[in-house]
Structure formats: structure tokens, C-alpha cells
């Protein structure tokens, strides 16, 4: 027997917090906006566009920091523990948006607040406390200066073991431009330097205690759906392997292909000491985030969590650290300091190459920079977080191109000012290359990562997934625009719902949850009817809005949808991918196809009608 809920709450309650005036306003998102943007990343973008002063300095009080839950976050839905942290990125100057798992998002919803929109800057360090639909601004002096793990433990000790917190570490406090927002020991809204924006607002943490339930329209149906989807997902081979060893499995794949970024992408093959089986010797247990059926998060024996594939690649292979133990130590260190591992590893490797090429002199560096020098890298990571010596310089991230010289940008593996997150060298997989070139937040693999074509799927399955024939050859430039377009849309919709990418259709697997599943889950949770087309349209709308914000902030257009010079000019040196590079004409062809599908003009701009449509939505509260 299932009981119907008597709880009542709005679908989406927002709290507008002004830290300068220490005021909090509450308002509901109207149903027509939920229909257009669902929640999570979509509504975050909407409110960012609404409250943003165009051209603001990302580290000024004018920047808008939004912590927003997905429409299904906290529900009995597989992997529904995610939310997005959104602002203008201090690293790239365009949209900064990062998705984070763990338990904080659901707890925030149970505490009655679905989205925090934070403006201004507090006079002294504060944290926000959320309970029973209220937001309190509290003094954070006792917590300022603590590392991530210390902060996590202290809030549990001071406020009760049942609170959940999201916070920044020393890197965020010191406004390192690639500091991240963190939950627990490892879960991070990692990319785009969201943590620096917290620091600039003197905001150390948000703490929530959730006493209320989220009413569900059809509880019995949702329970049945959950078990059905869990069994469906657990049949997938990818889910099984991810649950056993986590993302490190991808290292072997990239390395075998000869496409692992090492020595700042000057080389593409690295030691097998970082293989999944080696890493797994240091793993105690695999853990889940909220509601997760995959459990891909490692509890490692060195006192932390991780490493993920990105970490292994970027603070392992990319900076030349061969030893498994040392790589995991660096992983734990980066996590504890609150740095984005992808950017950190990319900048460190870049710095070493610049030193080798003479752009950084010995006086600035303070010592000789070498790949594979573990004590030096460890010291540098600490120095970046606490802004000491060369670390203080590197903490400025991609802004250093102005300092070191325009030509140094050619050696930085970044797009639109954001270093590439995936340790995979994309010169071989052309669709992957197009994906990181067009991703709205910079060189990022979580906006598209179109890798389905390499799975050797039958033609009719490809046709069914993408709606038209797809060239299965990963090195051709045909139909790659369609692949990226498809993934961009479904991943955006996925982020709006607050569901993890690992169970989203198209992410490494042709199974997993697609628009039909999303539609069913929304109906069971809220009784709202959506069609598949409507949900895809939400994804398109979010991508378009992100493009519009990027254009408004930095004039992003076709010239910015490009790749690091090395990917065009230098063929890959080793193994099976040897000789691969991105052909400029082929790349232009892919871009044209992608723009045409999006309905953008040949310069990558939104048509005027679309801009007018998005602007008209700003009138809604």
C-alpha cells in the first residue's frame, strides 16, 4: 500500500540572496518557465541572463552566483543527486557552469530551497544556512582558511552529523581563477573557477538540513519505474565496469590508441602504471552519490576519494608523474585544496613547456621546471592554492597569455580560455574535437563527448539514435556536426533534470535514459506532461541561451569555436593514432554542418528572432 502525500511545496522555490545588503527574497518559478527550461542548468542560465550586468568583472560583486537543482534532483530516480553551479567564469570570462553530485543538492531541496541566486559581496566571511524554506546568513570566520575535508568535518561537528554542506577550499578563498566548488572529499563543481566567485563574495559555504519531503504525484508508479530503470541500466556493460573500477578504465583505452595527453600534448603515449588495474590496488570501496545505481566514486587508501580518469591524465600523464601512489597523492591534494584538477594539470604542463621554450625565465620560476618532478609539482599545487611565488602567477590561469605573450596561447591546450578537461587527445576523434571546440563553457567533454560512433553499432541503430545516417568512421569529417548537435541537446536536457551523465543516453552507451524516460519520470514526479520533442527543444534552447550570454559577455562567435593550434598543426606522434591531426578545411566543414543544424548563421550567431524570443522570456519573473 502506498500513501499519497499531503506535503505541499512549489515545484521550484528560489531564494535571491544579496550578500552586500544581507537581504533574502523568496519567489517561485512560474510554470511557463519550468516548461521552457525545466530546472538545473537551464533555469540557472535563465536567471544568470536575467540578473547579470553585461560585461561585469567576474570577481566583482556584480557577478551572479547561482546554485540550482534539477527538476528531478532528490526524487526516487536513478542518479538524481546532481545540481549546477553557474556564474560568469573568472577563468574564461564567458559562462561558468559546473555540475556536481554528492548529497548536497537533494538536501537543499529537502530544506525547501531549489535555487540560490547570490548577488553582491559580504563584508566578512559568511556561510548560508538553509532549513525549512529559510536562508540565514551566518558568520563563517571559524571556517575561513580550512581545507575542504576540514570544512566538511567541522560543519558536521558544529551543526550535527545530518547536515550537508557545499563549500570552497583555500584556493577559492584566495580567488585562484580555477578554484572549484566542493561537496565532501571529492565531488566538485569543478570547471570554470566557480570557487573563485564564492571567494570573491566572501562566501565560504552553504549548509542545508532538509526536514521536508518532496511530494510525488504517483509514488507507486515512481517506485515501479525506479526498479525497472535500475535493472535496465545495470544490464549495460559500461555501467557494470564503471561500478567496478570507475572512470580509470578509459585511461587504458586512450593510451592504447596513443591519444593520452602527456607532456602538454607533445606526446601521446604514457606508462601503464596508471592503468585502471594499478589504480584499483589503492581502492578500498566504490561509493555512490545520491540515488546512484552506478557507484563510480573510489574511496582510496591514501585518505581521499578518486582518482578519476581526468585526474590520472592531468596530474599524472600530462605532467609526467609516472608513479601510481604519487598520482593519487596529488589527486587528494588538489581535492583538499579545492582546485579544478583539469585546469591545474593543464596549466602545470603548459608552464613546464613554456619554461623549456624560454617564455618563463628561471627568475620567475624560482627553480628549474621539469616534467615528472613530483616534489616540485606538489609544491607548485600548494603554491597555486595559497598564491605564493610562481604559484601566484599560475593562479591567474589562461589570463597569463597576456603576460607571457600571445604566441604562448598556441601551447595552451584550451578553447575559449578554458583548458581541456578530458585527458584524451582529440586529434584522432573528429567529432570529439568538434565537441570541445563548440562547447559553451570552453574545452569541455561533458557538453557533448560524442563517442558513440566508435562503438561499431549497426547502421540501423545509428539511424534510430541520430535520426539520419551517420558516418561510422571516427576520422572522417562527415556528419560529425549531427553527432555533436544530438549530444549537446540531450546532455543539456539531462543537466536540467539533475540526472548524472553516466546514465544519460549517448554517453559512452547507446542504452541508458533518453527523452522518453525523462518524459515518464517528470510525469510520475509532478504529473506534468511533456513530449520528447519538447524536451529536446529545452536542450536546444539552453544551448542557444548559453551562446547568447557568451556573445554578450565576450563576443563569442565562429572565431572562438576553434582548437588549440597544436591539434591543427602537429600530427600525433605515436601508436595507432599516429599521424592524426585536424584538417582546417575539414574542421570548417564540420562547423558549418553544426551551425546549420542549430539554425545559427555562418558566423555562429543566433538568428534575430531567436534572440528576441529569449529576450522576451526575461520579462517573466
Amino acid at each position, binding site marked *: *500500500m*502506498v*500513501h*499519497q*502525500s*499531503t*506535503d505541499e511545496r512549489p515545484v521550484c522555490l528560489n531564494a535571491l540572496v544579496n550578500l552586500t545588503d544581507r537581504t533574502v527574497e523568496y519567489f517561485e518559478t512560474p510554470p511557463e518557465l519550468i516548461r521552457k527550461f525545466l530546472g538545473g542548468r537551464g533555469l540557472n542560465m535563465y536567471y544568470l541572463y536575467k540578473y547579470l550586468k553585461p560585461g561585469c568583472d567576474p570577481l566583482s560583486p556584480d557577478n551572479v552566483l547561482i546554485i540550482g537543482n534539477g527538476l528531478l534532483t*532528490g*526524487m*526516487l530516480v536513478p542518479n538524481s543527486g546532481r545540481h549546477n553551479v553557474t556564474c560568469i567564469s573568472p577563468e574564461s570570462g564567458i559562462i561558468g557552469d559546473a555540475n556536481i553530485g554528492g*548529497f548536497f543538492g537533494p538536501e537543499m531541496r*529537502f530544506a525547501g530551497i531549489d535555487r540560490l541566486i547570490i548577488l553582491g559581496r559580504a563584508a566578512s566571511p559568511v556561510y548560508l544556512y538553509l532549513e*525549512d524554506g529559510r536562508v540565514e546568513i551566518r558568520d563563517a570566520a571559524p571556517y575561513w582558511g580550512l581545507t575542504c*575535508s576540514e570544512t*566538511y*568535518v567541522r560543519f558536521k561537528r558544529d551543526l550535527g*552529523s*545530518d547536515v550537508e554542506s557545499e563549500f570552497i577550499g583555500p584556493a577559492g578563498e584566495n580567488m585562484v581563477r580555477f578554484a572549484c566548488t566542493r561537496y*565532501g*572529499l571529492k565531488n566538485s563543481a569543478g570547471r570554470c573557477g566557480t570557487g573563485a566567485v564564492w571567494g570573491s563574495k566572501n562566501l565560504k559555504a552553504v549548509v542545508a538540513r*532538509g*526536514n*521536508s*519531503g*518532496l*511530494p*510525488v504525484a504517483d*509514488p507507486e508508479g*515512481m*517506485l515501479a519505474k*525506479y*526498479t525497472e530503470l*535500475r535493472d535496465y541500466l*545495470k544490464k549495460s556493460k559500461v555501467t557494470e565496469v564503471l561500478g567496478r573500477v570507475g572512470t580509470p578504465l578509459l585511461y587504458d583505452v586512450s593510451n592504447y590508441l596513443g591519444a593520452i595527453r602527456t607532456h602538454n600534448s607533445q606526446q601521446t603515449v604514457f606508462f601503464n602504471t596508471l592503468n585502471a588495474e594499478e589504480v584499483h590496488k589503492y581502492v*578500498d*570501496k*566504490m*561509493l*555512490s*552519490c*545520491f*540515488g*546512484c*545505481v552506478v*557507484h563510480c566514486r573510489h*574511496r582510496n587508501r591514501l585518505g581521499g*576519494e578518486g582518482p578519476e580518469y581526468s585526474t590520472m591524465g592531468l596530474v599524472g600523464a600530462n605532467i609526467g608523474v609516472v608513479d601510481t601512489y604519487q598520482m593519487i597523492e596529488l589527486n587528494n591534494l588538489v581535492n583538499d585544496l579545492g582546485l579544478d584538477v583539469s585546469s591545474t594539470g593543464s596549466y602545470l604542463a603548459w608552464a613546464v613547456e613554456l619554461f623549456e621554450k624560454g617564455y618563463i625565465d628561471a627568475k620567475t620560476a624560482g627553480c628549474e621546471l621539469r616534467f615528472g618532478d613530483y616534489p616540485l609539482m606538489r609544491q607548485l599545487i600548494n603554491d597555486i592554492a595559497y598564491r605564493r611565488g610562481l604559484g601566484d602567477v599560475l593562479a591567474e590561469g589562461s589570463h597569463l597569455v597576456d603576460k607571457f605573450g600571445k604566441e604562448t596561447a598556441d601551447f595552451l591546450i584550451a578553447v575559449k580560455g578554458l583548458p581541456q578537461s578530458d585527458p584524451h587527445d582529440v586529434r584522432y576523434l573528429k567529432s570529439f574535437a568538434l565537441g570541445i571546440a563548440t562547447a559553451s563553457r570552453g574545452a569541455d567533454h561533458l557538453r557533448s563527448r560524442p563517442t558513440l560512433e566508435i562503438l561499431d553499432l549497426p547502421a540501423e541503430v545509428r539511424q534510430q539514435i541520430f535520426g539520419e545516417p551517420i558516418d561510422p568512421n571516427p576520422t572522417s569529417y562527415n556528419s560529425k556536426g549531427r553527432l555533436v548537435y544530438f549530444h549537446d541537446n540531450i546532455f543539456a536536457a539531462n543537466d536540467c533534470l539533475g540526472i548524472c551523465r553516466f546514465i544519460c543516453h549517448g554517453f559512452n552507451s547507446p542504452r541508458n535514459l533518453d527523452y522518453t524516460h525523462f518524459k515518464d519520470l517528470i510525469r510520475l514526479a509532478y504529473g506534468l506532461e511533456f513530449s520528447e520533442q519538447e524536451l529536446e527543444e529545452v536542450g536546444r534552447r539552453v544551448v542557444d541561451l548559453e551562446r547568447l550570454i557568451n556573445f554578450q559577455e565576450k563576443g563569442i562567435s565562429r572565431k572562438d569555436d576553434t582548437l588549440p593550434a597544436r591539434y591543427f598543426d602537429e600530427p600525433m606522434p605515436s601508436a595507432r593514432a599516429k599521424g592524426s591531426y585536424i584538417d582546417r578545411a575539414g574542421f570548417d566543414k564540420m562547423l558549418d554542418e553544426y551551425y546549420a543544424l542549430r539554425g545559427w548563421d555562418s558566423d555562429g550567431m543566433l538568428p534575430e528572432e531567436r534572440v528576441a524570443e529569449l529576450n522576451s522570456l526575461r520579462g517573466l519573473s
Partner: protein
Amino acid sequence: MPKQKQIYARPDLCAGCRTCANACSLVHRGAANPRLGAIRIRQDLVERYEFQEICRHCDDPPCVDACMAGCISKDPKTGLVIQDQSRCAGCWMCLMVCPYGAINRDIVREVAVKCDRCTGRQIPACVEVCPTGALVFDIREDAVVEPFFTEPTVAD
């Protein structure tokens, strides 16, 4: 011998996702929030443990004695310790005496939340949803019926 529904926990398999508690809350009150479920996952990422706290339906349940509203009782037929939530006064005495920490609080409604082994469901919801097999359901055939106080004793 009566048959008793029993749930066994295997903490080594628990990945800490809290889906069991969320499903419990969903089934018993139609709303999602693991905190409102009768099963609870104790997890500490720094101390590195996770385990399930769930009512054992004790042979000699201290909560029955402690409940001043008299709303918790042990059903002799099923061996289950059942709470009538409509009469719960929210004094939290049952929480205080439970040796397993297996009773939760709903502080909004001020009632204790306690496992009923899902009356009316063949398999309890928490076991049904667990993605890792960390909860095991069994029907115990050997549950001992307590011989005392099952019939009122009348003095001649």
C-alpha cells in the same frame, strides 16, 4: 511457528546512495526524502564507513516499554513491532531507548518514524530498490513466540 519478515543488512555492499531510505519515505508518505524513511544510512566519508540502521523488531523491544502514548506494540502473530503513528506524541523516548538507533524523527510533523516491514507489500520497498544487494529480505520460520503475557492472566 509464525513466519516473520526479516531484513538483513550487508554493510560491506552498501555504497551509501540512500535509495532505500528514499523509497521508504516515498511508500509510507508519498514524498521523497531519505530522512523521513525508517531505514537510515550512516555514512562518514572521513571516518570511512557506511552502514544501514534498521529496526530489528526485537524480541523484547525497549521502545514498546518507553512509549508513553502506548502507540508501539509487538504483534504476537507476526513478531513485528508496530507503531500507530496517528497516536505518536513526538516525545522521542523510543529514539532514546532504541539500542540500534533505528527510529527516525520527522520533526516537521513531530512524529517518530519506524519500520513496519512494509505491511501490505510482499517485499519491503528498501530491499526492492537497493541497487547493490546490500539489503536482503528473508522470511524467518524460526521466530520464537513469546509465551508470556499473550493471554490476560486472571486471578481466581
